[in-house]
């Protein structure tokens, strides 16, 4: 088995592999940059909460219109945005912090979602919908993911300055007017959109992985926010490609393989990254001690 057949042949032989790769790449391109912002704003766990928050909407969409993807997507968007806005309002109007507020709302929507799903008898297909099947991407799902990805990238390009400003100096933006609040809502919309599109591909639980892991990895390699976003997208794409290959050659489920690929990239970055990586920190500490010993020796002489 030569390198070519190892790395490219599965995608040439099988249409479902090409579809899976296309869907996963599109998702990674948009989710990585969004993840960078979540990391910057210390909202890393919010993605997780939001992924559960869309469940009741998807369930309602499913219950009213069956396995129609439009209905489920719309439903997920509506509840996702509602939870985001309500949690934000509660955290602004009461002493409850934003993370606790999000936790409360997502737990409630999780319970509501499971209840709604169980209410109707035909719950069999929904399990597969909720867990997503990257290897079973139909035309409609593929189009949804690519459209969402394109919209997200364009919107990020337009909002980049405001968003970066809100992360780094929220006081300034607040003093300047309402732009910060609008940017925040726009960002939440993008987040919900990507989660809804992503759970068609990887499932509700896994989709957060392709959003956060490349982003946390990227911050160990480069400093500027823009570069981090590009790198996060590239690393996410790499993880998707590697995960699908591993799923093919090692006979393991595809979406966990993709997320574990991203996890491997994350831990490699934590260990070897030039910006705060463990190896670097150890080397610097050793150098400092050597200098200290050197200077002590010189003084004693």
């Amino acid at each position, binding site marked *: 088995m030569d390198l070519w057949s190892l790395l490219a042949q*599965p995608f040439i*032989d*099988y*249409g*479902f*592999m090409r*579809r*899976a790769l296309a869907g996963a790449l599109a998702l990674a391109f948009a989710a990585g940059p969004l993840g960078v912002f979540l990391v910057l704003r210390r909202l890393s766990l919010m993605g997780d909460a939001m992924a559960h928050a869309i469940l009741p909407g998807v369930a309602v969409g499913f219950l009213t219109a069956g396995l129609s993807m439009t209905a489920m997507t719309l439903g997920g968007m509506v509840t996702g945005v509602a939870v985001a806005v309500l949690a934000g309002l509660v955290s602004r109007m009461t002493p409850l912090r934003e993370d606790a507020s999000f936790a409360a709302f997502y737990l409630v929507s999780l319970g509501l979602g499971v209840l709604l799903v*169980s209410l109707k*008898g*035909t*719950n*069999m*297909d929904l*399990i*597969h919908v909720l*867990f997503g*099947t990257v*290897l*079973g*991407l*139909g035309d409609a799902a593929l189009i949804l993911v690519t459209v969402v990805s394109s919209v997200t990238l364009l919107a990020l390009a337009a909002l980049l300055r405001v968003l970066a400003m809100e992360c780094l100096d929220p006081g300034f933006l607040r003093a300047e007017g309402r732009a910060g609040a609008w940017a925040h809502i726009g960002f939440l919309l993008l987040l919900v959109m990507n989660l809804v599109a992503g759970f068609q591909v990887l*499932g509700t639980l896994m989709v957060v992985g392709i959003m956060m892991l490349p982003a946390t990895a990227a911050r160990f390699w480069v400093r500027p926010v823009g570069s981090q976003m590009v790198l996060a997208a590239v690393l996410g794409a790499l993880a998707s490609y590697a995960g*699908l290959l591993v*799923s*093919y*050659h*090692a*006979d*393991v*489920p*595809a*979406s*966990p*393989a993709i997320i574990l690929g991203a996890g491997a990239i994350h831990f490699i970055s934590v260990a070897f990254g030039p910006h705060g990586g463990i190896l670097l920190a150890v080397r610097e500490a050793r150098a400092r001690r050597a200098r200290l010993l050197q200077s002590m020796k010189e003084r004693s002489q």
Partner: protein
Amino acid sequence: MMQERWSFLAGPARNRARATVARRRAVERFQQVFLRLAAGAVCAVALGVAAAPQVARAEGAAGDGRLPVVASFSILGDIVRQVGGDDVRLDVLVGPMRDAHTFEPTPKDARALGQARVLVVNGLGFESWMPRLVEAAGFKGRTIEASRGVQPRRLDDGEDGPEDHAHEDHAHEEAGGGAHADAGHGHDHDHGGVDPHAWQDLANGVIYARNIARGLADADPAHASAYQARAEAYVRKLRQADAEWRRKLDAIPAGRRVLATSHDAFGYFGAAYGIEVLSVVGLSSEAEPSARAMADLVARIRAHHVRALFLEQGGNARALRQVAAETGVKPGGALYADTLDLPGHEASTYLGMFRWNTEQLLQAFEAP
């Protein structure tokens, strides 16, 4: 430290001078709340314990003379309805279009079972959740294992030589239901790896009907002859359908009778009617398939010249749709494996389900 921790209970007691007072008050309030909660929980449990048997006794006594029967899932429910007629009051736990594998009993189910005098289960390890439910409901009546006497198949029998299985079953057919029933009478109760979907062979359906009739007659001797008569009439219908479908399927060349499906539920069906069943292992469960499993399936479908790819109700339909697109096999309609359809649909009875499944297959096999 303590003050900060309990300040949300103690209210606006942020003054350092009042710290100790606030702390004591907060602890007291916490204790009160805790005690109240604990008392509430104890009351609730006591109420539940006291109430449950009373409810059961009260409603069990106020019956309308009909035998209260609980069937575990929809297909058994239909057979019980055919055999029991108006002499039984039937509750079905896993109703139409519900998945028996992922069934979670509700309190209503437990109450229905607690009031029942007869419970009809499939056996062969199909209702893994039943022992717990029986215990929880305090069911003390008679349990009918409908599959008792069926020749059990192992789940891994699927791929090798469906032909000899078919002959075996033909032989059993000719020997009659009684001989068939005796053949596997003392089968061991180690259900590991046993395929429970025995009802997918109509010859087994005959055994089911007779087992149920015998059990109902034992529980309700007053109506014994009615149960027997209805069961025999139903058995005649089952036999007739069995012969009809067998004739129609036999008319199709053996090489065309290849079926791939998402759920390992058609082993008995394939063995009985001479159909090669490609069990789509790895794609069958709720778990996500691997890319390797999908690729292998594509290769096998091409190698076996599969003509019918069926998305069973539930199952990993989206992945299979991609396999179908890949191999150019047209995905057939849905097959019913372990549930009936809702009333009003063709597959809302056991025989209707069988007619639907077989007609779907015939259509796919006969297609050019």
